[in-house]
């Protein structure tokens, strides 16, 4: 951090939640039909199934004294909508998102893919992506 910028007394992160609905099928081309069926169970149904996903993103940065904010919500929402919500919402993940053509669209892998798509946000630093597949299952990725 340059010398002329005062260090904030506390480390601040901005958190925002978004939602999208998508279908997926858990199926690995590296496994046999029987192994896929045994490992993924109902999630291996050839016709797929879907979830209402909640994506939580957390960004750190310096609070701009003029606006009181780390980043404008308008800018953040536009970025996340363009990078993640538009391409994922009401889609079949393995059929319509290139990253999942050869990668099983588990929510672990979804977290990593969303992190990769959002880490270039120019205004604040992406710290973590947490995805709730259902209200009972959630996954978090904070980069390597």
């Amino acid at each position, binding site marked *: *951090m340059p010398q002329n910028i005062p260090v904030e*007394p506390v*480390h*601040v992160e901005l*958190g925002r*939640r978004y939602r999208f609905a998508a279908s997926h099928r858990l199926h690995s081309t590296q496994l046999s039909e029987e192994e896929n069926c045994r490992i993924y169970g109902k999630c291996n149904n050839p016709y797929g199934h879907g979830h209402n996903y909640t994506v939580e993103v957390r960004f*750190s940065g310096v*609070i701009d004294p003029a606006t*009181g*904010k780390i980043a404008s919500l308008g800018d953040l929402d536009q970025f996340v909508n363009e990078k993640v919500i538009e391409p994922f919402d009401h889609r079949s993940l393995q059929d319509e998102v290139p990253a999942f053509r050869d990668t099983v669209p588990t929510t672990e892998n979804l977290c990593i893919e969303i992190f990769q798509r959002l880490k270039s946000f120019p205004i604040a630093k992406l710290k973590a992506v947490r995805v709730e597949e259902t209200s009972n299952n959630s996954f978090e990725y904070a980069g390597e």
Partner: protein
Amino acid sequence: MVYLTRKIEFAASHRYHNPKLSVEENRRIFGKCNNPHGHGHNYTLEVTIAGEPDPVTGMVLDLKDLKEILEREIMQRMDHRYLNLEVAELKDKIPTCENIACVIWNLLAPKIPQGHLHRVRLYESADLFADCYRNDASNDAKETA
């Protein structure tokens, strides 16, 4: 290390307005939040204390004590208040989620008698929140990584 979290809710009004900016700029930057009559939220505050459980009581910090600290420092100061005018610590600051969370951090950090304040998370709505942590070397390292 054990982390203990207590949640409280308070309702308050605020307005985003920077007197150094023109009327048009304020409206463009802050949109509806610049409404001269203000607006309000139900804020949810989660306060996390980190520490080792006391060998005798088994507690990191007596929740009763934490409840009293939160009542005195936060509820009495912010609940059913107009944050811009009635909370001295927010004077000359835009009362965003980030700034309110920082003020809460600074109010609470010196008042925790056992363990230490680990995180302040303030929700302005279910989909928007700010987290505060101690700005220590590990966070600095993460920043520059």
